[in-house]
C-alpha cells in the first residue's frame, strides 16, 4: 500500500515514481508538477529510478491559483 495525496493505493511490487504517475494518468513530462516522498522533494531526475516502498507517503503537487 502506498499513500498518494492522502489516498491509499494498492501497488504491485515497488513501482518507481514515474510508474506511479503514469498509473494515475499523469504525464511525467507535464511541466509545473513536483513530487515529495516521505516529506522530502524527489527531484524530477530520480523519478525513473526511485522506487516506492510499501507504506510510502507520496504527494504530487502543481501550481494552482493563489494569492
Amino acid at each position, binding site marked *: 500500500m502506498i499513500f498518494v495525496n492522502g489516498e491509499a493505493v494498492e501497488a504491485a511490487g515497488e513501482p518507481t515514481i514515474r510508474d506511479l504517475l503514469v498509473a494515475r494518468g499523469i504525464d511525467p513530462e*507535464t511541466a509545473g508538477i513536483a513530487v515529495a516522498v516521505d516529506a522530502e522533494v524527489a527531484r524530477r531526475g530520480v523519478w525513473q529510478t526511485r522506487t516506492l516502498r510499501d507504506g510510502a507517503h507520496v504527494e504530487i503537487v502543481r501550481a494552482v491559483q493563489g494569492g
Partner: protein
Amino acid sequence: MTRATPLQIAGRSFASRLLLGTGGFTRMEALGDAIDASETELVTVAMRRIDAAAEGSLLDVITAKGVDVLPNTAGCFTARDAVLTAQLGREALHTDWVKLEVIGDERTLLPDAPELLVAAEQLVDDGFVVLPYTSDDPVLARRLEDVGCAAVMPLGSPIGSGQGIANPANLTLIVEAAGVPVILDAGVGTASDAALAMELGCDAVLCASAISRATDPVAMAHAIRHAVLAGVLAREAGRIPRRTHARASSPVEGMPEFAE
C-alpha cells in the same frame, strides 16, 4: 507619461510595482486580462495536490502573458510544511523565489511569527530568495531582514479583508528601518489603499482579492495600477507637511481696501 524608478529585489529590476495574486479569479480569461491591465511582472501561485481532472491552463496563461511566477506557501501552519512547500514550488516552477507564508490562525490568517522566522532562515540557507508575508510588527520585519530575506511583505490588514492599512504608523516604522524592499501584502480593498501604501513609502503592493473579487476585476486592475503609480510618484514628489492651521496660498500683501 512619467515613470517611477524601477523596483529592485534581489538584483532583479521590475518596472511595475504591483504584484498580482492569481487567487480568486473565477475565469482564466479574467486572470489574463487582469495581468494585462495591471501591467504586473510577477504573479503568485499556490502549490496544491494535483487533480487529474483539473484543466492545466493556469501556467499556460501566465506563460502566455510573459510574466514571472512566484510560488507561495499559503495554507502552511508550520515552518516544516512551509519549507517543504517552498521546495516543491522550486522544483515544479524552476524558481528559487518564494512568497513565504506561515499562518498562525485560521480565522484571521495572521502570520505565526516564530514559525515564520524559522522557515525564513532555513529557506535563505537553502538558497531561496525569500519574500515573507509578515505582520505589521517593525521588530519582526527587522528580524526577517536580519536572517537574509530579500524583501518584507507586511500586511495592511488580514488577507482578503479589504480593510486597507489598519496601522499606518507601524507601516511607516517598517519602511523607515528597512534595508530591503517593503511590499504591502494583504488588506488592500480598493485603489486608494494601494496609493496610500506607496505614499507611506512602500516599494510595491501585492493585490489578489482586491482585484480578483472586485465586481469588474479588469477595471480594478487598471485602477490599482494607476493608484500604485500615483502613490509612488507622490512619494517621490514629496508631500507637504500636515499643519494644524491654514496657510494661505494667495498673497497676504496687496489686498485692495474698499471704500466704506
